[in-house]
């Protein structure tokens, strides 16, 4: 077998099943949704197949821009916190002896095998004005603080929901690091932090990117946490899209908002792919 034939065969064997799946179940359905962007909402919902560009001009409404800015802020903050907490956690998991590693990993995801709503309720019970944390604080003469129904509660909820999506990719990259590299660096007199900055971090950058992406993007699209923990007082991009599709039954404009989000995501994804390759 010639190497080039082997490569082509390899590309076929490895890429075609997943790509077929993506084409049929992602691209075609997505194309169907996005084709609505040039049509109009029917009087009572539904789609009228008359061409219009109005959906696109509506995008430039300052209202939507303010929601985008707000969402970027909240999702960015959630990502940063998840990274700062998740990185050391993933790192320490890789340092555990073999059988504990699996236990620690499973323990990261286990809370999420319970239902989302009762987890959110649990947070409300912890954070509300009459809740556990405030009662505890009061007992030692502090508070009560407004911990719930504000942006802080949204960020807490987002970090909580997506932390495993940060830890697992980080674990997968950190795990493959050769400990000898760090030792070499230490032997050469580098401090722990220098070793981290010059050796560990650059080598685990793909994991950092993947994890951050997995926290950042779903945070933008989340609509339940802003409603239940944020008290419905702030909107994320996800709330906007949901509102257009479900409440307004304006599928054409909902699709247009989705298209705008997808365009922005593609830029992010290409940057991510670029970093993954460079590392």
């Amino acid at each position, binding site marked *: 077998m010639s190497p080039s034939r*082997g*490569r082509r*065969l390899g590309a076929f*064997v*490895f*890429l075609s*099943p*997943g790509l077929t799946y*993506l084409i049929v*179940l*992602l691209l075609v*359905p*997505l194309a169907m*949704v996005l084709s609505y962007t040039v049509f109009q909402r029917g009087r009572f919902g539904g789609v009228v197949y008359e061409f219009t560009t109005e959906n696109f001009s509506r995008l430039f409404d300052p209202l939507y821009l303010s929601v985008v800015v707000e969402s970027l802020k909240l999702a960015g903050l959630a990502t940063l916190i998840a990274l*700062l907490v998740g990185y050391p956690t993933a*790192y*320490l998991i890789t340092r555990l002896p073999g*059988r504990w590693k*699996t*236990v620690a990993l*499973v*323990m990261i*995801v*286990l*809370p*999420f*095998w*319970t239902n*989302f*709503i*009762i*987890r959110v*309720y*649990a947070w409300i*019970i*912890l954070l509300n004005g009459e809740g*556990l944390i405030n009662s505890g604080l009061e007992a030692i003469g502090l508070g009560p603080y407004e911990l719930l129904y504000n942006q802080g509660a949204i960020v807490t909820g987002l970090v909580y929901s997506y932390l495993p999506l940060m830890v*697992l*990719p980080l674990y*997968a*990259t950190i*795990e*493959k690091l050769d400990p000898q590299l760090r030792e070499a660096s230490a032997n050469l007199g580098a401090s*722990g932090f220098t070793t981290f900055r010059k050796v560990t971090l650059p080598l685990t950058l*793909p*994991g950092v990117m*993947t994890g951050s*992406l*997995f926290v950042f993007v779903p945070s933008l*699209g989340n609509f339940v946490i802003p409603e239940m923990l944020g008290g419905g007082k702030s909107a994320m991009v996800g709330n906007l899209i949901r509102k257009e599709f479900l409440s307004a039954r304006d599928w054409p404009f909902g699709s247009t908002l*989705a298209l705008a*989000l997808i365009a922005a995501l593609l830029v*992010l994804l*290409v940057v*991510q*792919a*670029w970093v*993954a*390759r460079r*590392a």
Partner: protein
Amino acid sequence: MRSSRLLHVPFWLTYVFLYAPIVVLVVMSFNSGESAYTYEGFSLKWYGELAKDERVLKGLVNTLIVATGATLIATVLGTLLAVGLARYSRSKTLEALSLMPAVLPDLVIAIGLLLFFGMIQLTLGRYSVVLAHGLFAMAFVAAVVRTRLSGTDTSLEEASRDLGAGPVTTFVKVTLPQLAPGIVAGALLAFTLSLDEFVIAFFTIGNMEQTLPIVIYSMIRFGVTPEINALAAILLLVSFTAVIAGQRLTKIGESRAQD
């Protein structure tokens, strides 16, 4: 290493953060009140209610079937895709495409699939949700495995090919063992995400086979009862037991191997 002592703080913080609400949630399963939202007193009645509630138990079975199916599809296809992207392609477009399902808003995927399944006149059932969940779960597996692959030493694989092994043999004998931690992490993610997914499941499931999250969301109008907390508590207990048992077994296995 002394410096890593400092890392123990965020490590334990993570677990406290993850489990504080879980403790609350389990305590609420013993609530005598009607709601999972306010604690009113101790009672075991919700465990009894749970045992009688066919709809919830059927929902649980459907959910487990869907999550298992989706995880299988996602793990196999996602791993292949990741290897294909890392070793046999240079296209950033393909790479971005493979990540799309993980990052698109679930509602957009859900409505797309609803329209698509409608177009091809597919009768919805459990398998349509398996296909739908397999889609986004595959993206997560591919990304995690891909992350592990990037920068790994390819010399072994090249050596294998130089010795005349085809791509499949090379993959099974050389690449796969290196990838194992990534595949495990990806599969765990896939299973976890499918288990609690609501939006896509709602729009792609058949009328007979609703999954547990759909049953629970529909309770919102009359209040989600602590019955769901009781179910969660039992599931957690079973999972913890399985994990600890697994840990003990590997320990025995390891010590035998040393003898």
